[in-house]
């Protein structure tokens, strides 16, 4: 993560996105781009947790939900400025992420995956049944139009711009984390937690740090989601979303921020491709995941890259 190539690819993606948004005049395609960016923000968070620090989480949908519901409630009940509400909501998600990671810090791999899955399920049950605050599964919740300081920014173009800025900031944060001391700490912990502890790294603190950052980014995405979707129910925040996020990182890359963003767009755009095969989507998802993990364990885009590099080297040699 945070290699020179990765940073250049990320920059390329960030430049291409506005161009794509400018040339599509179809509002549906534009909304796919916006949702793609939102998912990309979440995926960058999970990429830090899983790719950089080796901490698997199957409970990301909970942070996404906290972001969305706290934002909605602040805006609806207190009439707070939407952007401020999003920031407060993502801080809430971060606090929950930090708090949940402390007791879970003894767990790793399989156990961590199951524990986070259980956490995500508990939160989902809470979202679905805390109807007073969330509207549950039916009727759900509706959020007023997005605005900044009174200026109406609810058009798809404006929402795209806001989401794009947030994504850019998230990418900068992720790259800074990966490139600095804390990034090396996390990488050391991924390779071997006991070895990292033996050279004076506080493993518990490192784990809760990366959980907090992952939750923060996912909560941020959730807050944006609330304003873009404007009307949604608790069904969005089930285990399915956590698994979809994992798919995005797996399809893209476990090691590159640019890969996570690519994966997010591929998964978000799939419904367009699978229009007529909606029923087969889950099956294809699962089979793809198994195949990628077997043959390209660092991610599909990553695997294709190294395959290309090997072929090019072979031709030269």
């Amino acid at each position, binding site marked *: 993560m945070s290699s020179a190539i990765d940073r250049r690819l990320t920059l390329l993606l960030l430049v291409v996105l506005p161009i794509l948004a400018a040339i599509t005049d179809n509002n549906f395609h534009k909304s796919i781009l916006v949702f793609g960016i939102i998912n990309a923000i979440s995926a960058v968070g999970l990429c830090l947790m899983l790719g950089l620090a080796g901490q698997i989480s199957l409970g990301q949908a909970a942070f996404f939900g906290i972001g969305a519901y706290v934002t909605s409630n602040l805006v609806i009940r207190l009439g707070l400025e939407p952007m401020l509400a999003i920031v407060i909501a993502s801080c809430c998600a971060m606090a929950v992420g930090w708090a949940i990671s402390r007791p879970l810090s003894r767990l790793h791999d*399989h156990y961590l995956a199951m524990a986070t899955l259980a956490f995500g399920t508990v939160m989902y*049950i809470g979202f679905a049944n805390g109807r007073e605050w969330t509207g549950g599964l039916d009727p759900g919740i509706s959020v007023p139009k997005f605005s900044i300081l009174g200026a109406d920014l609810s058009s798809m173009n404006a929402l795209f711009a806001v989401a794009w800025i947030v994504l850019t900031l998230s990418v900068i944060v992720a790259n800074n984390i990966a490139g600095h001391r804390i990034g090396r700490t996390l990488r050391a912990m991924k390779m071997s937690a006991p070895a990292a502890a033996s050279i004076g790294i506080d493993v518990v603190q490192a784990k809760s740090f990366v959980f907090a950052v992952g939750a923060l980014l996912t909560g941020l995405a959730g807050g944006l989601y609330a304003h873009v979707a404007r009307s949604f129910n608790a069904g969005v925040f089930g285990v399915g979303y956590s698994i979809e996020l994992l798919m995005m990182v797996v399809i893209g890359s476990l090691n590159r921020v640019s890969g996570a963003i690519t994966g997010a767009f591929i998964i978000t755009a799939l419904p367009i491709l699978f229009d007529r095969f909606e029923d087969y989507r889950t099956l294809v998802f*699962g089979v793809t995941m198994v195949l990628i993990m077997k043959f390209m364990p660092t991610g599909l885009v990553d695997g294709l890259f190294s395959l290309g590099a090997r072929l090019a080297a072979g031709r030269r040699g």
Partner: protein
Amino acid sequence: MLGQIVVSGFTIGAIYALIAIGFTIVFATNRLINFAHGEFVMAGGMLYAYFTGVQQLPIVPAFLLATALSGAVAWLVYQVGLSDVDRDNHITQVMITLGAGIALKGAAQVWLGKDTLFPPAFSGQASVAVGPLTVSSQALWIAGGLLAFLLALHGLLKYTRLGASMRAVSIDHYAATLMGISPGRAAAMAFVMAGVIGGAAGGLLAPLASTHYDNGIFLAIKGFAAAIVGGIGSPLGAVVGGLVLGLTESLAAGYVSSVYKDVVSLALLLCVLILRPQGLLGQVLPQKL
């Protein structure tokens, strides 16, 4: 009231115990948590409903076929997904079993349908009076199923060559390999047994609680919780964990709220993971670095 709650708690607890046994066997021989395990249970229930409903088979062959097919599916998952993956590559194992589970769910959705199915109970008589309590006949089948599988498993692990080799692999995989035991074969057999027992749990549960292509992951979380509460790696622990979990859930549903009964049981899982990760009956294994 209390008596009835205990009966329904033990009924669902027996199902959790059967699911937990599958987790435990696979963990003992493979050192992995099988995230596709819930889908074996789902497959058992859905196939039982399919054979009795669409194919109009009698109950006994339908149940046996469903159970055997879940075993075959489990074998396929191991052979295609896991047989050549490094034992120590845990994250990859999590992802592969998770992916296999999603694929099975998708396959059930495409080939067995998206409807919630209510297959027939095993015996015509709906419920039996035991003293002051009414027990549904299916609950008795479930209890009998748990007992039968426990005895069969005990016999297999204790008195057959295959069982001995599986126990050897679970104690020390490397030493077992040096003694001429094929760890791959033991691992594959563990998956088949998990598939068969899980499928049977699904078939036994379906008449009581209906069956749907989407409920696998939920059953998996419950079964895993039972395995952890009891102490993963020990079949007896799985049974104790399942019954404790079922009873807790049933008490929570009866005295607190039926909506939050799942929250109570998952909170129990998180508490055990945090406070006593080896479970109620498990022993602490020394950690090798």
